[in-house]
């Protein structure tokens, strides 16, 4: 591949401003003030290659509309990434190809090993960790572009002066590029620190409980206003001001940290989706800076994807996006939300009783929740389902949109355990079937079956769509103990119903016990 020689001063034709300075006649190659100083010739094939990469990324997401097309979609995504990387490599003069290839090899190997080894139950924290990497990469790219704007074609001419035969041209980063850069770095930094906190909370390395600072809304708002103000000052300034740029970066790191700290527990799926969205906007902002269509298309796709997932999660909890952002949900809930209520009578069942009822049942609906993931009970659960099917029982799985710690988490765990996806149903598709169901088998879920969401206006989960398990003939509730309540910290009337059998044990052990008694 031959590269066009870099021309520092592109030939000027009719683009000169009307009152042509006398200098321009002397030196027709000198750009006017405000012109972009383009050092790399723009090849239309390069732009087309990046566009092709962007289209392949769209196809990658499109493939996910059905499990049967999803694998092809993933390959489209890989092809798009390959095109983007190769195009960049062949169109830039590479002073440091060995280092670049080594960096790709190191990162690739780390990523590959992590992807092979990660347990499916740990997907939420992995995704959060990956978001933080996108955010940090955006910060690094933004700073690199700031320090070496010539390599990114970001320079515009700010002044031309001549001293006899010597013409000196003053250049700086254009104001639009500066705004794009500052926003890209700010969103990247915010994504990074927010995702690190989300990762620590999801991985259990930090308390999942919300941490509430006094006056946090004012502090956060103040920092965001400061970032915007500094961005404006940075764009207007005469020279490229390192202090402003550094201040924007640091403040964005701080606000990302402060925004996620007060959010916890049941709101984590929203946080993960929201950070997904931010990582997309960071990539899009960098795409604006670099005038790169692949980055802009991808950023827009990822940004809207995360935003839609956040919306779905909020709707599934009947919470407004703003109240999630404000944080603090479940902060004041003790393990026993209401002492008086827990004195009500309840029935304890054994694995043997449960096995007997399950075997005699015609229709069983299994409702998994995060507790199933914690106990790693999905494989035992699938085995129980298989044995029951052998007894002629119709076994189906019902998944609430917010079950687990990220969107679709339960579906992946059941798929991992080889549960066919046509036996797994969404809330709205199966909720009308509970009246014809003999056993509703709740394993590791709680708030998503709490009828208080339908009846008790004072309940924190009021209005949240829930499974109508109380309509089933028998309800089996696997739970560690009677003490703990769900993440929302509300008591659940289902525990005390006549047809409810509480199976108090570790979820996996209980399911294994039940399987023993099924034969």
């Amino acid at each position: 591949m031959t590269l066009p020689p870099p021309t520092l001063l592109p030939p000027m034709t009719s683009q000169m401003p009307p009152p042509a300075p006398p200098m321009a006649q002397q030196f027709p190659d000198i750009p006017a003030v405000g012109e972009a100083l383009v050092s790399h010739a723009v090849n239309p094939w390069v732009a087309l290659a990046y566009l092709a990469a962007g289209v392949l990324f769209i196809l990658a997401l499109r493939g996910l509309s059905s499990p049967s097309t999803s694998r092809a979609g993933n390959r489209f995504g890989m092809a798009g990434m390959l095109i983007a990387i190769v195009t960049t490599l062949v169109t830039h003069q590479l002073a440091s190809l060995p280092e670049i290839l080594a960096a790709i090899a190191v990162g690739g190997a780390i990523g590959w090993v992590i992807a092979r080894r990660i347990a499916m139950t740990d997907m939420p924290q992995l995704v959060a960790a990956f978001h933080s990497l996108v955010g940090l990469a955006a910060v690094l790219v933004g700073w690199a572009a700031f320090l070496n704007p010539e390599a990114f074609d970001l320079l515009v001419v700010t002044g031309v002066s001549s001293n006899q035969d010597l013409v000196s041209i003053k250049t700086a980063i254009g104001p639009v590029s500066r705004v794009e850069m500052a926003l890209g770095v700010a969103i990247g930094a915010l994504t990074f620190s927010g995702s690190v906190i989300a990762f620590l909370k999801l991985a259990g390395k930090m308390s999942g409980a919300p941490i509430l600072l006094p006056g946090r809304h004012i502090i956060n708002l103040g920092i965001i206003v400061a970032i915007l103000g500094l961005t404006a000052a940075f764009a207007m300034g005469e020279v490229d001001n390192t202090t402003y740029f550094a201040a924007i970066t640091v403040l964005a790191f701080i606000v990302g940290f402060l925004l996620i700290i007060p959010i916890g527990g049941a709101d984590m799926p929203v946080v993960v989706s929201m950070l997904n969205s931010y990582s997309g906007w960071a990539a899009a902002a960098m795409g604006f800076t670099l005038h790169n269509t692949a980055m802009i298309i991808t950023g827009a796709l990822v940004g809207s994807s995360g935003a839609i997932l956040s919306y779905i999660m909020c709707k599934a909890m009947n919470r407004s996006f703003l109240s999630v952002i404000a944080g603090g949900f479940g902060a004041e809930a003790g393990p026993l939300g209401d002492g008086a209520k827990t004195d009500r009578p309840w029935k304890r069942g054994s694995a043997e009783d449960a096995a007997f009822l399950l075997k005699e049942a015609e229709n069983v609906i299994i409702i998994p929740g995060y507790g199933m993931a914690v106990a790693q009970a999905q494989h035992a659960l699938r085995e129980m389902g298989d044995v029951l099917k052998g007894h002629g029982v119709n076994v189906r799985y019902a998944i609430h949109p917010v079950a687990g710690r990220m969107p679709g988490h339960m579906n992946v765990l059941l798929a991992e355990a080889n549960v066919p996806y046509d036996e797994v149903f969404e809330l709205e598709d199966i909720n009308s079937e509970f009246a014809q169901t003999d056993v509703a088998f709740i394993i590791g879920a709680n708030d998503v079956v709490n009828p208080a969401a339908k009846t008790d206006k004072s309940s924190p989960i009021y209005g949240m769509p829930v499974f109508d398990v109380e309509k089933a003939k028998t309800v089996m509730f696997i739970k560690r103990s009677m003490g703990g309540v769900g993440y929302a910290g509300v008591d659940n009337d289902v525990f005390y119903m006549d047809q409810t059998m509480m199976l108090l044990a570790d979820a996996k052990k209980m399911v294994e016990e039940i399987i023993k008694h099924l034969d």
Partner: protein
Amino acid sequence: MDFIAILSIFVMACFVGYYVVWSVTPALHTPLMAVTNAISSVIIVGALIAAAGAGNPVAKWLGLAGIVLASINIFGGFAVTARMLAMYKKKERPAAAAAKGAAAAKGDKA
């Protein structure tokens, strides 16, 4: 490209994203997040330009660090998505799958 042209691409892509993502089945929302993670690392393009650019050694090292981070995400993101999607392969009917299912489960772990 001028700013308005780029902005137009961005706005159109947001609409495409909106409709495409609503068509994703909820069962695949976790793979969706993993794959969006991988593709948003197209930001590696910026890191490559920085690492390739001569002139500023600090910018070059920032670029190289960016390449490492983005590569972790690209390889990790696509690989973990592929791993998850492989689990959604159509299973045989339960009657025939009883014996094979156990074998397949072992195969997955390997």
